[in-house]
């Protein structure tokens, strides 16, 4: 998948989200068979990944977390190598040593994934610092995290350092209302993480996190601002985790009315309906995209299944440089 500095077409955003959805639904199936331990999906949150990542340039870096499939796929990751990684296969992005929770792909500028909640926030300033010290490099760093991570101390340390050192970081908080099995309202005095970011002196915005076009526009605007000023900015996508924390999770603790309200605002449906309403999409085109995405995922699963496991000797490699 291409990422360019031009705005992606709404159809490209739609297809990216549909690819993420299809990938994660395939993983849900694999996890149900007991083969993808720890899988965390971002079903319902695809607009944040598609909108933000497609607003970045190839020179930019992204840091992601345990819910990373969308960010990686939007960046152009090969779903076959991702599933291979989840299955612990040698052909995975990390030779099977990561598994699903911390896939990094340096070749895509997706670096240093941490599943320690807040880990990516601790690492982002250093990646951004290196960019500022490389002459001619105008790349910025986008780092993705949840509202739960914002409750970690290092969130505040990271934002503060980024402000006082003027580091080019786009902080992207996907506020999906859940912090594993605890609702955001139990852990924070306010509704929006933006307020904390603003208090640290960042330009901080919220956006409808289920509207891919709105997310894209906000991310593109903030990215341009970061490039122009060198200062960090903060974007909070207001969204909802419509599947469980991980697979399987029957969500017994979720208020059905709240879940239903968000499901009615599914980001893929939302964009598809909008495009349909003004004639940019019809059923035939949608079916075409769906078939293309399904074929990609089928092929990815087949590739991963056919891939070999690493040799036992791999246990001892890559410890030291």
């Amino acid at each position: 998948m291409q990422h360019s500095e031009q705005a992606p077409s709404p159809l490209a955003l739609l297809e990216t989200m549909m690819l993420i959805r299809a990938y994660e639904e395939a993983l849900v199936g694999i996890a149900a068979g007991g083969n993808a331990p720890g899988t965390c999906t971002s079903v319902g949150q695809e607009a944040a990944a598609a909108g933000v990542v497609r607003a970045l340039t190839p020179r930019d870096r992204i840091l992601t977390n345990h819910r990373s499939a969308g960010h990686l796929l939007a960046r152009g990751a090969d779903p076959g190598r991702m599933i291979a990684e989840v299955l612990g296969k040698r052909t995975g992005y990390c030779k099977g040593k990561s598994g699903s929770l911390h896939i990094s792909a340096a070749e895509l500028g997706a670096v240093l994934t941490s599943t320690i909640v807040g880990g990516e926030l601790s690492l982002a300033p250093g990646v951004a610092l290196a960019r500022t010290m490389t002459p001619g490099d105008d790349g910025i760093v986008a780092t993705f995290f949840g509202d739960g991570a914002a409750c970690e101390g290092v969130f505040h340390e990271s934002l503060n350092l980024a402000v006082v050192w003027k580091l080019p970081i786009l902080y992207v908080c996907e506020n999906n209302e859940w912090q594993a099995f605890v609702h955001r309202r139990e852990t924070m005095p306010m509704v929006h993480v933006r307020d904390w970011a603003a208090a640290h002196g960042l330009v901080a915005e919220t956006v409808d996190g289920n509207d891919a076009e709105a997310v894209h526009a906000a991310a593109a605007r903030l990215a341009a601002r970061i490039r122009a000023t060198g200062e960090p900015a903060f974007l909070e996508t207001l969204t909802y985790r419509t599947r469980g924390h991980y697979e399987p999770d029957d969500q017994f603790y979720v208020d059905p009315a709240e879940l239903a309200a968000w499901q009615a605002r599914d980001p893929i449906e939302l964009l598809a309906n909008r495009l349909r309403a003004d004639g940019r999409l019809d059923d035939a085109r949608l079916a075409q995209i769906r078939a293309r995405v399904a074929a990609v995922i089928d092929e990815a699963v087949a590739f991963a299944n056919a891939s070999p496991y690493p040799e036992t000797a791999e246990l001892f490699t890559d410890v030291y440089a």
Partner: protein
Amino acid sequence: MPVITVNDAISQAIAEEMRRDPSVLMFGEGVATKRRELVAEFGAARVRNTPLAEGIIAGTAVGAAASGLRPIVDLLFAPFLCFAMDEIVNSAGKLRYMSGGQFKFPMVVLAMSGAGWTVGAQHNHNVEAWFVHSPGLKVVMPSSAADFKGLLKAAIRDDNPVLFFMDLALGYQSGEVPAGEHLVPLGRAATLREGRDVTLVSYAKTVHYCVAAAETLAGQGISAEVIDLRSLKPLDEAAILASARRTGRVVVVHEASRLCGVGAEVAALVAEHAFDALQAPVRRLTGPDTPAPSSWPLEQAFVPQADAIVAAARELVGARAYA
């Protein structure tokens, strides 16, 4: 050869490496304030003060190291490392492996350690073994001014995260230090004194107590070999085993407490691989399993001293040497 203090040896190493390699930079609480000569020579971008936030200092070093820089961070006193454990242990130590070798982390974490300032347990705690137990890290703890310089320069050039512990009591001790290029490889112990009857294995300030003990023992007819480990990870297992085989008796001495300390590893190593050469059990002389006290006599009592080392060595050598 010039005689300089340990603190000056450290400064020399940092300045030389920053001069040699523009990707080396240093930051921490008060670094730019205290190291004005570095700011003057290398500029504010490469020598920085930070907010009081050890987690983000260490995390920033990790992110920068993976992105082509070679950061040195000063986290001041070893107990403050507790605020940076995730960044050092989970990120610096593991992300190379977890990424299948996609990243490397050339970075040095400086921390002061040990008794000497009578300021109590939240500034004085020898935590080096925690990091020896963590994969992907290297751990260094020198005893002489020359090794401080040579090991620090090697640590800065190493492509892996290195915890560089500075025994607080040694900062103003002087020694001969080669000017300019002087590198001491990580993972290599130094035999400070050769002997036949007993091996004294140590690192940091207690190395000096071992040397003093060896002199006393020599006067009593006991020939003690003194090994300064210098690096705790990688550990120079070959040097330890060769000496144990030569003398048949080993005393391990360190200030850190005994349980699961480096001494336990040395003792186990010798028991596993040189058991047949041993003429007596391996002895450990260590700090006690208590927080470090503030009061001067208590702080001194915390640290194994030369007379205790002499007594332990004599006990192992037994009546034969008394004759």
